[in-house]
């Protein structure tokens, strides 16, 4: 294993769904001799791509979990995190970017810059990740890598220029022209593993010269030496160009664009050369940590393997090997058998087993040094924890975790499923911080919430497949509430004589809206009209009434019940009698107290290309939303609104279809507000009809 950090690359492969990044990773593994046969994502051989290790991923042809792998290309150790393409799995992308030094942004040469590319690019900018672009699928009908490069500039604001151009397109794609060396590269052999270098075809000479000029002009600003040679019109050494491209890329001011078709085995190896040449090694990137022994003062980690250990756990996975913890080492070295401290819990942890992950296979290693990405076996920790050696106490800066936006109720079909479901939920919530679960005490259902419908759908499927936990997924339910808006008096007598001892109790008083809190009981009885022992019975009766309001059957909140009079019978009064009297009194007063139905209002933020602003606002308006404002940021617009939760179900699908999948939204709870009259009437009608049919 290399220890020279200049020979280490920690890269991510990110892109829009279906851009072919898993296929690209598969080819990378093949060319770097990590695998010895190529399997397609939706391959007829039924094996599936190496990186899509989950059955579900292989079936759907999308990456759900990011898998980590390691390879060596021309003397450089490359740790690769293959990240999901769907917007619902953003956390996987975010977590990968946090620990990576560079990234390959994969784009489809037909689809161009799509919404997820925009999201991923924004995330890369947030984490200051230098990137190169690979325009894939140049063999497809309608492929136009030049248009995609222009989109990289216009839509993503990247200073992107092609460092290669394709030789032929669509069915005629045969190779690429390297604009740095001005050579044509052809990929031969059964799997394109033999690279033949040749002269640029005559028909492409002129165009290639133009593109090279464009490239040189763009990168010359990063190298005085290159600019000088250009001004003197001298011979330009390719290394000089590479140096300039590297400088620009590391400074996040330039993005070299590679082209090819991973599926047709074209252009992958030169892209790997690009990873080696242009993406940073751990020493090129400044990572900050918080010194816990010095008021969380920020300091730059050293990357020095001789310094005290700092290691970040960025992903947990509970697989067939037990809990796997993916870690990135920022400084120091850790050897099998070492003890390290979890700086969050202060607990000492022994590193029993260190592994390099190759998708779902592990390769045991004895030590890992600064800059490495490896997995620890059997270490109990949470995602985002920092491990240190005993002589230092610090924490890597926290990772941005988006809030869940959608919830679903799930009900296990039987007792066995109930047990398995609990196990599954326990594991999923530990693995994925954007997936949350809780039991709604009002409906007694288990609610799962996450980043989108597909996100939850995948977890429901995983519960079934991996844990044999069959669950019924209910339609998303909103927890409405009822409250009163006026003061109302009650005076109710409960009297029952059915032979034997009877029941008697009279409860009088009033109820009024309670500004803060859910319920308050006030005993203003004087003179013993209700004996002391039955006061708590009245309270119980009122509390029972609060469970289900009579408007729509939802819980009642914000009520103060005051009793000031009553009557009892020496023989027939009892705890039950007074409870029933209080229930009756509540019913009597409740309808006079002008009850209303309240609904949860969500603060919704929709982000999408400006061209769709009108459609986005229209869609919010149709959902009873109140638009609070809009914010234009370049070609992007954010629309902020307050929208009832009940109107937000299915919104991700609507939004996708309205905006060609280019917009995304987040939402969080804001407040409970009274529903409009029309909705109020509908809810009452629905409840009445349910009651009738029950």
């Amino acid at each position, binding site marked *: 294993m290399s220890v020279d950090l200049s020979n280490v690359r920690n890269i991510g492969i990110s892109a829009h769904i279906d851009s072919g990044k898993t296929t690209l990773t598969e080819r990378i593994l093949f060319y770097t001799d990590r695998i010895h046969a190529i399997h397609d994502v939706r391959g007829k051989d039924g094996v599936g791509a190496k990186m899509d290790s989950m059955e579900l991923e292989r079936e759907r042809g999308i990456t759900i979990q990011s898998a980590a792998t390691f390879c060596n290309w021309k003397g450089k150790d490359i740790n690769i995190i293959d990240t999901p393409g769907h917007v619902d799995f953003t956390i996987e992308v975010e977590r990968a970017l946090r620990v990576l030094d560079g990234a390959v942004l994969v784009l489809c040469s037909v689809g161009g810059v799509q919404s997820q590319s925009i999201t991923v690019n924004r995330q890369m900018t947030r984490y200051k990740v230098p990137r190169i672009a690979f325009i894939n699928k140049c063999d497809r009908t309608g492929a136009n890598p030049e248009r995609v490069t222009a989109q990289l500039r216009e839509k993503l604001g990247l200073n992107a220029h092609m460092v290669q151009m394709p030789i032929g397109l669509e069915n005629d794609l045969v190779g690429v022209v390297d604009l740095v060396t001005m050579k044509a590269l052809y990929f031969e052999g059964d799997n394109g593993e033999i690279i033949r270098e040749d002269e640029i075809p005559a028909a492409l000479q002129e165009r290639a010269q133009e593109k090279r000029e464009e490239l040189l002009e763009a990168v010359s600003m990063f190298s005085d030496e290159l600019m000088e040679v250009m001004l003197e019109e001298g011979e330009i050494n390719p290394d000089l160009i590479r140096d300039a491209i590297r400088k620009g890329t590391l400074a996040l001011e330039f993005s070299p664009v590679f082209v090819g078709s991973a599926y047709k085995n074209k252009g992958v190896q030169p892209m790997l050369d690009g990873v080696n040449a242009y993406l940073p090694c751990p020493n090129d990137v400044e990572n900050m940590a918080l010194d816990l022994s010095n008021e969380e003062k920020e300091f730059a980690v050293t990357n020095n393997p001789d310094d005290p250990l700092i290691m970040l756990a960025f992903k947990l996975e509970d697989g067939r090997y037990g809990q796997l913890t993916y870690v990135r080492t920022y400084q120091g070295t850790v050897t099998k058998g070492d003890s390290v401290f979890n700086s969050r819990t202060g607990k000492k942890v022994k590193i029993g087993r260190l592994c390099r992950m190759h998708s779902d296979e592990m390769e045991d290693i004895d030590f890992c040094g600064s800059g490495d990405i490896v997995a620890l076996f059997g270490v109990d920790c949470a995602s985002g924890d920092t491990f240190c050696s005993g002589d230092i106490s610090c924490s890597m800066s926290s990772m941005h975790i988006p809030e869940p936006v959608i919830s679903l109720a799930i009900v296990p079909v039987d007792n066995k499923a109930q047990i398995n479901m609990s196990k599954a939920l326990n594991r999923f919530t530990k693995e994925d911080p954007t997936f949350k679960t809780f039991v709604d005490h009002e409906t007694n259902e288990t609610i799962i919430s996450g980043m989108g419908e597909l996100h939850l759908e995948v977890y429901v499927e995983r519960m079934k497949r991996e844990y044999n936990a069959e669950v019924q997924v209910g339609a998303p339910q909103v927890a409405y509430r009822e409250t009163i808006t006026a003061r109302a008096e009650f005076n109710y007598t409960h009297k029952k004589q059915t032979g034997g001892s009877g029941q008697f109790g009279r409860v009088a008083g009033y109820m009024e809206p309670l500004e803060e809190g859910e319920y308050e009981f006030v005993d203003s009885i004087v003179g013993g009209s209700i004996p002391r022992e039955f006061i708590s019975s009245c309270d119980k009766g009122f509390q029972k009434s609060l469970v289900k309001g009579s408007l729509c059957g939802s819980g009642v909140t914000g009520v103060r019940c005051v009793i000031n009079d009553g009557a009892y019978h020496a023989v027939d009064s009892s705890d039950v009698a007074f409870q029933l009297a209080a229930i009756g009194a509540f019913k009597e007063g409740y309808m006079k107290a002008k009850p209303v139905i309240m609904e949860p209002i969500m603060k919704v933020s929709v982000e999408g290309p400006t061209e769709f*602003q009108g459609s986005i606002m229209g869609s919010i*308006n149709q959902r009873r939303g109140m638009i609070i*404002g809009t914010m234009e940021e370049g070609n992007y617009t954010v629309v902020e609104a307050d929208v009832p939760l009940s109107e937000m179900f299915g919104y991700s699908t609507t939004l996708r279809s309205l905006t060609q999948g280019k917009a995304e939204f987040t939402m969080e709870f804001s407040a409970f507000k009274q529903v409009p009259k029309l909705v109020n009437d509908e809810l009452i009608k629905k409840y009445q009809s349910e009651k009738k049919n029950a």
Partner: protein
Amino acid sequence: MGKKNLVMNNPLRILGLEKKVKEDGASMGLVMSRAGLGKTAILVQIALDSMLWGDKVLHVSIGEGFDKTRAWYDDILRLMAVEEKNESFQTTVDGIMSNRMIMTFKESSFSQAKLEERLDDLVQQQIYKPVCLIIDGYDFQAGTHAALEEFKEFMVRHGLKMIWFSATTHREDKRESSIGVPAPCHDIDDLFDVVMMIAPKDEAIDLKILKCVSDTVDTGTSLTLNPSTMLIQKA
């Protein structure tokens, strides 16, 4: 009670603008000062006044983020709540918030045409139809007389009653119009119905009315600002 009280006690009543707006429509107002003296605070109070009257306000903020603009409203309302000591104040505030929409643009991307496009989106889909526009951060150095006239036509096209602008003055630029409107608005002051200037004076801050076409106020009349809260007070 709370709302009525707030409306009637608003020092801005002195300008008699509501009367003028109702009669004529399409008026433009301008709040000027050096940087950092509280133009946005004044514009927010003007916006809140319109909102209390039941008018829909579109607050366009150029160069400022959405959250920062909203924070101005929250701050001013919090201060008003302290002054008002009215229990129903929050209810009043909740009631008027549907009369406000904020739209923010980057300096480089704002244009009157783009604003019109956005406004059309809102009006045509019957989402929001403002009658008062607040434009905070408009670049008057680049804005010509013709460009401002275009805003007048824009107001008529969209049935807007009032647009309020803010403009930043610079100490070193001594140019001013015959009525004392400083650069960069000295040669476009004819387009405005009201021009107010914020100027520090001793320990207070003056809100001087340089121009007001309404007959309810004499030119030169002043309001003051509480320097710690930036709330408008009667002089």
